[in-house]
């Protein structure tokens, strides 16, 4: 039971690669799945949070007596009941479930009420009297760089309200610029936006016999489990976190949240189950979405358009708390090198605290902003040197099985092929050139899972158990299906190995009490990591069953076929029963840990390495009305290097979802503030695409068979979003000759750029200056020997 069968000939795959409905699809569309908010337990209380009305204020006192007197109120909590700080990253545990000293944004939780119903809890929240001393709010990146009159938001980091600084140099950047035939600089801004999941966050806690169970719409129950143990001061073994069936994550449910901690605490205090479901407005405040990022980029090329050096600066508006901020900051500089062979690269990044809802990871975490800047910058650079923008890119593409200047290991790479396929399908080179019509093109890449966990530990990143008993197969894995289809991936992998169908596999996932660890659904890691763990576990089980059947049938194991519900001549059930008779409990496990040596060893090297990278290319065809600036996107072509599709239908769904979200960010979405208040915390006023605006998407899948991915598979959850945004900007320029260097590209910005051009000014809308940031001294890192060398 310890030897794994050598990989079978993958041309013989029977389930992997098919287009099949997802395993949970029928239950979702018929309404029979219980999402977190559908959970109802006997005697359950309803919890509401009282949130700050001030962007920034000291809490002088909190009087809860009137709230406690409201009939039906069972518990009222303040920060004094939950004094332990926490945060997703060990370097910035700067949050409290309820703030009792200082509030840092409108929406920051300060108190909680549990009552017999939601109306009573809400009314009691309004009866809580909080005395505040307002402080001067920090509303912009520029303001955060200036020492505040009052005090910085946090008592760590700095100077002023700077949270995090990074400065890295790989290779000799100055020398590269000195040799350049042409150097170009640009400034870009990407406004923040939010995940907008259909499902609002919900958490329910129950205490039975001293053990706390939390059901929550979370993407990573493991990290919530850890945070709860810390804040509630309970051993991990007393806590169980279950990721409920999910109505959309996109990165917005990756942090441990106040409401999750509060319901556990109240359940512990009262002995009654407690639920808290956020309103849509609260979801906007809970946020952890796309950082607003101001960017400056300078690139030098030789006479042939080959990049000699690049210098990229970013400034991230982090909002009120750390969240994933240190990682987000480094991500704005990490993946420029995974599409283009940059021989000398300097990155300086900064994240600041402001009095806004905290930013964090959203689909593409920290990379859509620099990808937009980089791709548009290269379009402009191509025009400067008289090269076709696609040709300029091609001359700089990374090669498969290479190493970037910042030490990232590239394995399979379909960059050339996704480019060719999109160009071919879209007819980009032959596009109709007329005022008001344009096409744009861009490429990108993304990680198949972060190479390192969020906190330092040596556990496997993913573990799987496959049990067979009484003829049935159950797969246990901590991975969490947030709608991306991870359950289907696990079931498909197990079915492939065991000669069954995905629907034959019973799944237990995302449950810290019942499943082995998986770090969670973030960084596009599940197919690659949990997929490999599942494959190992299922292959071991297969070998065990084959061995038993071979003995029984008196043949060699290699002669036993496992397919179509049969093991050799026996049915799967017969084989399973025979094996159980011989061995007792039939259990096999698999684990996945990313390989060593996929990244560098410098400070900051933890962000960017991944066991593999996916590649995407997009072409966007659109019309812009030159009178109004209104955009109609006609079609998007998206080619994606998936490595291999585990379930082609699910892959296409993720591509279309990524394109949808990318277009929303490109054209409309903005988590914007005015005087410290969110401008549009509702689904009517926060604009995102409706069916009407969503164009046809032509998805082209390129299979490069990654040597380490399960069956060669790579990620698809995040990558396809990335090239869409710069391709839209490029297409608008193609249509009207104006550059919109700020996301989102809204009609008013286009008209302003057109008006500027009509007045003889620069045909552009966008930021004009990049602030002076006190970046630290550069950490100079010698490039790896095999890094792209300047010609």
């Amino acid at each position, binding site marked *: 039971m310890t030897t794994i069968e050598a990989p079978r000939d993958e041309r013989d795959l029977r389930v992997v690669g098919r287009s099949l409905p997802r395993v949970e699809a029928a239950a979702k569309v018929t309404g029979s799945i219980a999402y977190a908010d559908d959970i109802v337990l006997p005697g359950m209380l309803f919890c509401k949070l009282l*949130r700050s*009305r*001030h962007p920034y204020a000291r809490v002088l006192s909190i009087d809860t007596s009137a709230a406690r007197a409201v009939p039906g109120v069972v518990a009222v909590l303040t920060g004094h009941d939950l004094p332990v700080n926490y945060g997703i990253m060990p370097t910035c545990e700067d949050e409290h479930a309820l703030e009792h000293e200082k509030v840092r944004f*409108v929406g920051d939780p300060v108190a909680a009420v549990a009552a017999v119903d*939601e*109306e009573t809890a*809400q009314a009691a929240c309004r009866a809580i009297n909080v005395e505040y001393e307002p402080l001067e709010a920090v509303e912009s990146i520029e303001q955060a760089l200036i020492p505040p009159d009052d005090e910085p938001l946090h008592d760590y980091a700095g100077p002023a309200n700077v949270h995090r600084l990074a400065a890295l140099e790989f290779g000799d950047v100055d020398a590269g610029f000195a040799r350049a035939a042409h150097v170009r600089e640009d400034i870009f801004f990407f406004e923040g936006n939010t995940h907008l999941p259909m499902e*609002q966050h919900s958490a329910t806690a129950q205490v039975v016999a001293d053990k706390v169970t939390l059901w929550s719409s979370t993407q990573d129950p493991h990290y919530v489990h850890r945070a709860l143990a810390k804040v509630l001061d309970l051993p991990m073994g007393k806590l169980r976190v279950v990721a409920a069936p999910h109505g959309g994550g996109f990165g917005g449910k990756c942090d441990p949240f106040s409401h999750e901690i509060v319901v556990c605490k109240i359940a512990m205090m009262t002995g009654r189950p407690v639920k808290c*479901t956020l*309103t*849509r*407005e609260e979801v906007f405040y809970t946020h952890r979405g796309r950082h607003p990022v101001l960017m400056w980029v300078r690139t030098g090329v030789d006479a042939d358009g080959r990049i000699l050096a690049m210098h990229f600066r970013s400034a991230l508006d982090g909002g009120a708390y750390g969240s994933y901020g240190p990682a987000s900051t480094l991500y704005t500089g990490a993946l420029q090198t995974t599409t283009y062979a940059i021989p000398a690269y300097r990155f300086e990044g900064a994240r600041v605290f402001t009095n806004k809802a905290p930013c964090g990871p959203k689909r593409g975490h920290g990379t859509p902003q620099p990808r937009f800047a980089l791709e548009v910058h290269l379009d402009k650079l191509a025009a400067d040197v008289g090269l076709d923008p696609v040709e300029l890119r091609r001359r700089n593409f990374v090669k498969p099985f290479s190493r970037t200047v910042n030490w990232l290991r590239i394995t399979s790479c379909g960059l050339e092929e996704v480019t060719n396929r999109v160009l071919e399908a879209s007819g980009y080179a032959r596009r109709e050139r007329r005022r008001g019509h344009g096409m744009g093109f861009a490429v990108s890449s993304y990680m198949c899972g972060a190479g390192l966990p969020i906190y330092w530990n040596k556990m496997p990143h993913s573990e799987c158990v496959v049990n067979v008993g009484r003829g049935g197969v159950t797969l246990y894995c901590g991975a969490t299906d947030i709608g991306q289809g991870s359950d289907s991936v696990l079931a498909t992998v197990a079915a492939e190995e065991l000669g069954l169908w995905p629907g034959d596999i019973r799944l237990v996932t995302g449950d810290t009490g019942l499943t082995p660890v998986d770090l969670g659904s973030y960084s596009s890691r599940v197919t690659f990591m949990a997929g490999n763990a599942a494959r190992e576990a299922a292959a071991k089980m297969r070998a065990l069953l084959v061995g038993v059947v071979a003995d029984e049938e008196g043949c060699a194991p290699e002669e036993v076929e496992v397919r179509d519900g049969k093991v050799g001549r026996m049915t799967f059930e017969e084989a399973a029963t025979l094996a159980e008779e011989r061995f007792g409990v039939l259990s096999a496990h698999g684990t996945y840990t990313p390989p060593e040596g996929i990244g560098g060893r410098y400070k900051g090297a933890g962000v960017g390495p991944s066991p593999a990278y996916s590649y995407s290319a997009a072409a966007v065809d659109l019309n812009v009305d*030159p*009178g*109004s*600036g209104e955009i109609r996107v006609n079609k998007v072509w998206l080619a994606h290097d998936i490595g291999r599709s585990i379930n082609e239908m699910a892959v296409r769904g993720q591509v279309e979802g990524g394109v949808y979200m990318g277009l929303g960010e490109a054209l*409309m979405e903005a988590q914007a503030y*005015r*005087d410290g*208040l*969110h*401008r*549009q*915390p*509702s689904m*009517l*006023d926060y*604009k995102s*695409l*409706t*069916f*009407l*605006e969503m164009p046809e998407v032509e998805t082209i899948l390129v299979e490069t068979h990654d040597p380490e991915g399960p069956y060669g598979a790579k990620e698809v959850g995040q990558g396809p979003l990335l090239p869409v945004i710069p391709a839209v900007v490029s297409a608008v320029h193609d249509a009207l000759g104006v550059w919109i260097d700020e996301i989102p590209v*809204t*009609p*008013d910005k286009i*008209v*302003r750029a057109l008006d500027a051009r009509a007045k003889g000014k620069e045909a552009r809308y966008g930021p004009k200056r990049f602030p002076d940031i006190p970046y630290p001294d550069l950490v100079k890192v010698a490039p790896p020997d095999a890094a792209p060398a300047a010609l």
Partner: protein
Amino acid sequence: MLRLPPFRFLRPGSVDEAADLLAVHGARAMVVAGGTDLVPKMKRGQMEPEVLVGLGHLSELRAVHATEGGGVEIGAGVTLAAASSDRRVGAGHRAYSRAAALVSSPALRNVGTIGGNLCVDTRCNYYDMSVEWREACGFCMKKDGDICRVAPASKHCRAIASSDTAPAAIALGGTVVLVGPGGCRREVSVCDLYQDDGQFYLAKAPDEIVECLRLPPPGAWRSSYVKVRRRGAIDFPLAGAAVALAMAGPVVEGCRIVLTAVGSRPFDVSAAGEALVGRELTGEDGLLADVAAEAAKVAKPLDNADLHYVWRKQMTRRAVVQAILEAAGHSPALAVRA
């Protein structure tokens, strides 16, 4: 979720009875038909009626009658979906049926009524927020506060008139029948239903109920409505222009222009259209641009709606040009840059 606060629901047997109930309960009461505007606003604490007088069940409000000469009388309880697809309405009053078809989304048009859209609350992104948000902001004069947040020097509320159908009804010379307590009825022009105050935007008495909309026979008038908004499947207008033209061959004999979403009431700016009278519409000279610029002078957008207010002003001019060309039967593609 946001919870609907408690209220008392009354189910009158007739419109007359409904008006009497409004008189009895005074400021504590409101009428409700489709509820698409009212219900979310009750959840957000923008409206706090203790008593709701239901109109949705009154079949007398749900009839459409053709009147002599091609006119039409539409009951206030007719849904926007029904009104927009009714051929008796669309035949001679294109601007109106078009406007009704452009309100919000299909789902809300199936519930929302034409009376509700004429009376729809003015909008402002300092006001269309939860009570918690408005409290954080310090409230505004339209609800619970005393100053206008978008124009602090303003003596009156600057929330934006956001009815799509009102400008169309005005351009078509429409009237409404109002029912007051005691069965008292009066007919007023749709234009006179409004006043330029975002808070007190309706010029009728609080206990008067819109019973029906009357659109007169169209005669030689041809009309259209152009709506500017971010997303064509849901949003409120950022600007809107209803135009009715009387044409004699290629020559304009009369021109009415009414704007919405440019101030706290729909504005009849037909005076700007007089420059077109006696002229041929070609769409190619500067005449339309001049007319549009004159018409849009009244538009003073502020930073209390979607997108930049300068753009909204520019788009008001553009909507006027497009609506004139559409009304004249020209292709919108002819629209010149206003």
